[in-house]
């Protein structure tokens, strides 16, 4: 199995074009190593909201330390709370928030005691620092559900054999090998400042504006190059949207460059997913990497 894991081709490849709407199920390029099928959360379907949403059979099947009847957040109430708190001191605001959380949390003593002993989250989520996209809020994930890495642009650098003091590499290694998460999700979002910064960087670096930001976002410069070549004539805003999704795919691809990720995927213990939260149009797309495509991957000796 180790031989297989190391034989994946990691050379440059083309992901499906993140053009207008959804991601196609079939690649338009012969060398595509990944099949991507998109599913959009369709707000038009009539959905009965289940307040016991946390009792999901999927997760029970996947994870014996299963999920609890955490009480649904009541966002409406929280917003009014914010409105009245706005004049109070910043720490008072946090105190109010914490006391509300604690009130709800202690209602489930089983959850409290099990989480005090350890965590067994089924998900690892890699999301942006952006204040508008907290994944636990948007996807209503209670404590214990998701191990979360957040940086600007939800970017994952490619594997490097030399230790590079990498927050992403260490977090992924811990999640995959020690917490044994079942699903790794990279979640991009609309109006991402980091992606906009990446797209705005001149080739000669003449418009550099920061000490660290450009160096960070340039780890995924291939994503912006690709978008600029495919969407040459599109308006900048559209190019940025395409790049936001391309960055998710590039980060997923970089996740695959870690041997321990590939091994877990190959053994069926880990699935990689992409997500895109659009807070302009209030939509969430998700897609999954399909392992059967590994058949088409060139073996590299």
């Amino acid at each position, binding site marked *: 199995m180790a031989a297989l894991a190391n034989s994946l081709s990691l050379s440059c490849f083309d992901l499906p074009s993140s053009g207008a709407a959804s991601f196609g199920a079939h690649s338009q390029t012969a060398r595509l190593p990944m099949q991507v099928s998109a599913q959009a959360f369709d707000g038009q379907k009539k959905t009965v909201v289940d307040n016991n949403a946390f009792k999901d059979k999927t997760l029970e099947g996947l994870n014996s330390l299963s999920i609890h009847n955490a009480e649904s957040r009541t966002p409406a109430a929280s917003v009014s709370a914010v409105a009245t708190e706005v004049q109070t001191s910043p720490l008072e605001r946090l105190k109010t928030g914490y006391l509300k959380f604690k009130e709800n949390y202690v209602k489930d003593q089983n959850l409290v005691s099990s989480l005090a002993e350890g965590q067994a989250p089924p998900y690892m989520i890699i999301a942006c620092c952006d204040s508008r996209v907290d994944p636990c809020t948007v996807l209503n994930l209670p*404590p214990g559900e998701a191990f979360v890495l957040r940086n600007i642009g939800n970017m994952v650098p490619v594997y490097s054999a030399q230790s590079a003091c990498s927050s992403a590499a260490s977090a992924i290694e811990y999640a995959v090998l020690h917490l044994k998460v079942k699903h790794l999700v990279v979640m991009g979002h609309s109006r991402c400042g980091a992606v906009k910064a990446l797209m705005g960087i001149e080739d000669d670096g003449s418009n550099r504006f920061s000490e660290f930001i450009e160096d960070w976002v340039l780890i995924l410069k291939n994503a912006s190059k690709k978008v600029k070549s495919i969407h040459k004539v599109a308006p900048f805003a559209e190019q940025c949207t395409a790049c936001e999704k391309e960055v998710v795919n590039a980060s997923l691809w970089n996740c695959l460059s870690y041997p321990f990720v590939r091994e877990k995927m190959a053994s069926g213990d880990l699935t990689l997913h992409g997500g895109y939260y659009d807070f302009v149009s209030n939509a969430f797309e998700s897609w999954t990497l399909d392992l059967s495509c590994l058949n088409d991957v060139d073996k590299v000796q």
Partner: protein
Amino acid sequence: MESVDNMQERKLEELSLEANVACPVDPFEKMRKAFEEFKAYFKKEKELFDALAQSQHPKWMIIACSDSRVDPALVLGLELGEAFILRNIASLIPPHSKQSGHKSGASAIEYAVEHLKVEHIMIVGHSRCGGIKALLEMKEDGSNRFSEYIEDWIQIAQPASEIAKAKVPHDSPFEELWTCCVKESVNLSLRNCMSYPFVKIPMEKGLLTLHGAYFDFVNGAFDVWKLKCKIDEHQSL
């Protein structure tokens, strides 16, 4: 004994079969339902979200651990738009250095302070932190190394480990040393934050406050403290 090639082929076929069989349960089903509920909330608070769609103006930057039990937005009841949040193992910030490897922490802080103009940075440590435990158990000669990346990352907090080991009596229970080390690590990361000029300057002007915090989910407590930095008025000798 099956040859490696045959084994690889068989494994690939098995994987292929598994992947192509219609999966009866969708891992995103639960998230899908949750998002539907969120969407309804989003529609209800249209004004708030229309404003957020244009831009974000969080007053807080929060640096928290990736641990699934300590999401700061959940724990502190923060609404979307309130806090710019960086999360990594043990909520560590390395000191300012142009030569450091990846710059995920530095770039996030720079963006938050210079572009979003946050007024507060809070670094939150927590009880039973696996990263800090790994740090405390690391042998100096590296003989019990267990990972490719985790130890190199958590080494950032090595000075905190030394301080904690000096502070806590040797015969104390491990939990005491663990708690002390988490708090010292928060303090270390706060001092490292200050080593960035774009943090130090607004702090000295009173435009930015740094806070430390410790979330104890074992005993149900959340402690906060401030890092004070003030340059007094010059006095002639």
